[in-house]
């Protein structure tokens, strides 16, 4: 190896102990500067309040929690919500009912595009108001075409419905073959026996692969800490349902688990002024949804060709 004279400057002279005073001082100076630079670089992390807690960090996967574990987890969530919003919520872990499979039917002849469902959903499910997260997207379609690429998403006329248009609300279609469940790398989202695809918000790693996989654009990501005004918080909560989410996780429509697993209708069904939305148990032959699927002649599963087989049916009055 050739050795240039200039290098001698860069290599500290070494005394018998292997370390000269000069080199020691220089090394410590470099080391201190380095540490200071790293500390300065990481300074923004001081804003990282309630990002996670030790309890949450070590929390087990939903399906592995024992009833005692779950009790503790629900307590923790109640405490966290109370601390943040000043209201003590009632958080439950509602299980699917036996002999129940939920199905949704939506009458496209009746929908007037008023978006009352969108806002009822936001209020019921504690969605972030800033930035706004909404589970239901209402498309304004032109009569005669089912091409969604021609749909208007941000229609805002003084009055709805507009002549020459029909309206198509889209939300999670609760597929039989959900692509989102298939792609999730950590099983953070899965299909329950009553047909609802749920998310464990405490298990999701926020990779957004499910969001890329969903053919219905039904999933939403918490790009920042969700903001909900304290007086708007809905305190009736479920673990897999509407409890407040954290920054960095996915969420989506879950058929209002906190209501439907307790025998009530989803908020969007209740609020609809046009009777567009029908919800019920397909395993019950006397339910409204069974009647619709048996007797209405035209019903559509969105993007049927993808084989996702939604539990969400669009139909017309004919």
């Amino acid at each position, binding site marked *: *190896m050739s050795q240039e004279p200039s290098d001698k400057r860069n290599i500290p002279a070494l005394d018998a102990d292997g370390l000269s005073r000069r080199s020691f001082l220089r090394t410590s100076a470099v080391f201190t500067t380095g540490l200071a630079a*790293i500390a300065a670089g990481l300074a923004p992390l001081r804003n*990282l309040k309630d990002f996670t807690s030790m309890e949450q960090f070590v929390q087990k996967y939903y399906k592995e929690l024992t009833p005692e574990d779950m009790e503790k987890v629900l307590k923790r969530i109640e405490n966290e919500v109370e601390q943040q919003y000043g209201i003590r919520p009632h958080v439950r872990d509602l299980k699917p009912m036996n002999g129940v499979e939920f199905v949704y039917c939506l009458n496209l002849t009746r929908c007037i595009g008023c978006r009352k469902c969108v806002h009822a959903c936001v209020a019921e499910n504690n969605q972030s108001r800033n930035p706004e997260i909404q589970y239901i997207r209402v*498309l304004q379609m032109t009569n005669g075409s089912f*091409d969604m690429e021609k749909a208007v998403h941000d229609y805002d006329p003084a009055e709805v419905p507009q002549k020459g248009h029909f309206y198509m609300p889209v939300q999670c279609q609760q597929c039989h073959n959900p692509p989102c469940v298939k792609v999730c790398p950590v099983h953070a989202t899965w299909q329950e026996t009553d047909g609802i695809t749920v998310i464990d918000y405490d*298990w999701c790693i926020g990779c957004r692969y499910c969001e890329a996989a969903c053919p219905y654009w039904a999933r939403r990501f918490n*790009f920042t800490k969700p903001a909900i005004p304290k007086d708007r918080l809905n305190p009736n909560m479920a673990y897999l349902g509407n409890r407040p989410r954290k920054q*960095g996780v996915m969420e989506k429509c879950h058929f209002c688990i906190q209501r439907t697993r307790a025998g009530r209708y989803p908020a969007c069904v209740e609020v609809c002024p046009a009777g567009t939305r029908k919800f019920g148990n397909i395993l019950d032959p006397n339910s409204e949804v069974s009647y619709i699927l048996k007797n209405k002649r035209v019903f559509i599963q969105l993007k049927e060709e993808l084989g996702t087989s939604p539990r969400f049916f669009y139909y017309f009055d004919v």
Partner: protein
Amino acid sequence: MITAIRNYLVFLLRCIRIAFVGDWRYYAWMGLLTVFCMLGLNAYAKQLANGLVVTGMSDQVSWGVYIANFTFLVGVAAAAVMMVIPVYIYDNEELHDLVIFGELLAVAAIIMCLSFVTVDLGRPDRFWHLIPGIGQLNFPSSMLSWDVIVLNGYLLLNVHICGYLLYSRYHHRKPARWFYIPFVFIAIFWAISIHTVTAFLYVGLGGRPFWNSAIIGPRFLASAFTAGPALIILALQVIRRVTNYHISDKALLTLRSIVQVSMIINVFLLVCEIFTEFYAGGLHVVSSKYLYLGFHGYHALVPWIWTAITFNLTAMVLLVLPVSRSLRWLNLTCALCITGIWIEKGMGLVIPGFIPTPLGEMAEYSPSLNETLVCFGIWAFGLMCYTVFLRMAVPILQGNISKSNEGEFLQGSPRHEVTLPQ
């Protein structure tokens, strides 16, 4: 046993020690990279505190330059195989002593890949959910779980191969064939698999017609085998310039032939893709229209993709012409290949898959400043890793750091270890 551990620790210590020693150019280069690393670290700290809202991503375009860079770098990592195959299967003499530089590049590229995936996570604190045993890895259903396995496996394979060969050289021992040759052959298949699996990540999504095409996998491999060896050609010349390690022009020209053939295949596959999309028409063509021509007043990606196509075509012409046998032209060509393919695979493949959304909404994407700084930070970190690997490997390969001069290191006068250019 204890002696073996002691020897290995001394070896590691000497490697670490040498990483901190060099001439002024080495310090300047590492200093520059450190500055970018710190900027990136700071930007990432901001992202952790405020969430991914500081990026340009949205619910509409939910993956951006992080995943784009990830995809590109998986290709770079896989491309090491383009040096391994000639050496280990066809006994290529020219590349024989250089193959380790390709493998080290693969290690650095995988480190960058894993960093890019990590910064893309909304909850990096929950990474342990991916670890089999304590977490819930969704294998084999999720392609992302395959990617976790193949990328980490590839990292381990290459670390083992490089580490073992270097350690053998350090001891002036002939490496035991059974202890690395099987791994070399596994790594060949593994390299193909990392990029195929990464392609399947996109291809497997039925709801995204732009990606749901069988040709994406072959295109990924063709573009990887273009950009990767192109990067190695440039890296080898830098090594040749700053050390006195012998790298022949003939070796560079062997790599040129690989880039040449790969680029021709790459362009051919692109033509196949464009023909199928546009000639058949139909609803699925919207993303392609948006990408290549702009759609209903949205055309953020049009300048990007045409830059990429121009670069790739120019590079192909140059590669076919004898002019690219001269190193100056070859370097220009390599730069064109790398840039062209980075754009094509990043902005040209990942982003348009999201536009329009499955509900037909048009929403565009461009990376934010913070996001860009994080990317620069990771690139700087990756280059720093590669520089350090080379800083360790070159003197070992040249015999300047070996067991025989261990004594001098232990007595504290390791001056001879400073490898310098002639």
